[in-house]
């Protein structure tokens, strides 16, 4: 039951983008079209799930036995970068079509704050491997939901009469703020942090 609750919490009530404000760069950068938002969302979900698993293993098998918790940030980002590089190579070799769909997005999210934030939060909350996997997957799903929502709104906005001073990034930031307000409404549903 607990992994499921963690999943829902990470995806909706404590959505990474809209309550922690992590991963705002892809949220603003890759959200102009629904199609690219879907690609980015899938790539991010994939990387985040992998990250959750590998960082949990590194944390519990290497860092904690050696009492090197203070190295978490450096080691995590390093391991994530290596992992994504490796996954990219494997995908390129084994499945060209999947590489075409995800390929351009993979390097973009390697060193993104949402991925590192996920790894550090998971370690801070002492999740075990299964819990952390669900945590990462939920965070990815939440990221995809938020990206899909805003890209739909932005596609609609293109034909609307936005004041000249607000065109582009400003109106997107305002929308992001309003969406964060809306997501605050979920915050009471699950008490788990």
């Amino acid at each position, binding site marked *: 039951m607990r992994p499921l609750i963690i999943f829902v919490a990470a995806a909706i009530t404590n959505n990474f983008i809209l309550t922690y404000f992590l991963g705002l760069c892809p949220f603003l950068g890759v959200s102009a079209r629904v199609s690219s938002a879907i690609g980015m969302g899938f790539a991010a979900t994939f990387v985040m799930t992998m990250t959750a698993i590998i960082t949990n293993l590194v944390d519990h098998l290497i860092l904690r036995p*050696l009492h090197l918790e203070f190295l978490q940030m450096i080691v995590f980002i390093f391991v994530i970068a*290596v992992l994504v590089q*490796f996954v990219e*190579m494997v995908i390129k070799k084994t499945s060209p079509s999947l590489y075409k769909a995800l390929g351009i997005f993979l390097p973009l999210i390697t060193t993104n704050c949402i991925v590192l934030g996920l790894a550090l939060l998971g370690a801070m909350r002492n999740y075990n491997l299964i819990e952390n996997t669900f945590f990462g997957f939920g965070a990815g799903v939440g990221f995809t939901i938020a990206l899909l929502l805003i890209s739909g709104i932005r596609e609609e906005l293109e*034909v609307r*009469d936005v004041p000249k001073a607000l065109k582009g990034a400003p109106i997107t930031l305002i929308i992001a703020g309003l969406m964060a307000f809306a997501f605050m409404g979920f915050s009471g549903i699950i008490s788990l942090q």
Partner: protein
Amino acid sequence: MNTIIISLVLTLALGLLSGLFLMISFKKFYVQEDPRVEMLLEALPGANCGACGYSGCVGYAEALAGGKETNAAKCGPGGQEVADKVAHIIGLDTVSIVKRVAKVMCNGTKENAVRRSDYDGVKSCRVADFTLKGDRGCVYGCLGFGDCVNVCQFGAMFMGDDGLPHIINEKCTACGKCVEACPHDLIELVPLDRKVFVFCKNLDRGPVAKSYCKVACIGCGLCVKQAPEGAMKLEKNLVIIVDAEKVDEVADKVVGVCPTKAIALDEKFAEVKTV
């Protein structure tokens, strides 16, 4: 002190191991790519405009190298020069291409076309078309908000004082972005050496069309009789040029009989041709 040494050793070991791991996997998972793709990409202009019908220059280069595409002259922005290079790289015969440019098939200037209402909405052809087909009397003609001008990547279009978009032939690369942007499908890509055009897409009957536009095609069919058999035809009150070459041969006769001057010579084109 102990902690420092352990952390140093750990990070060093981690770095070395993963470096080694990545190196080995890079060799193991190395994907051989066609070297011609790289060469083709260098030859192509890299504008990623999509005039060739592929998603971008990469798509076209891959199709050419993979043998799926055998036409070396599909790159609009590149013109003859790039077509030669591309043909050379993939070992095809050189193809000569006639430059094509975009052309607006409407002459409904502010003077020629009557407006039937005041439109005060978003300054976009697409939105205006959605709201009761725009403010002009003619629901087939140019809406005049310049959606085509806005999508042009090459600065080849501008809105004239007459309320119509104009095309700078020298800059136009025939990428077709404006063709897609026009909600009334008024823009066509035509060879630079064509002379006679029907500058109208109006499908209304003659008297109706004439009531709101001075230069509408009224579907009288006089020009069709001047042209060789089958070179022009009348369809839904609108003249259509079927065989442009044959019509161009009798250009003066065809243009001369038109009572509304909907069918006309393109002066700008003639100039470019003589230069």
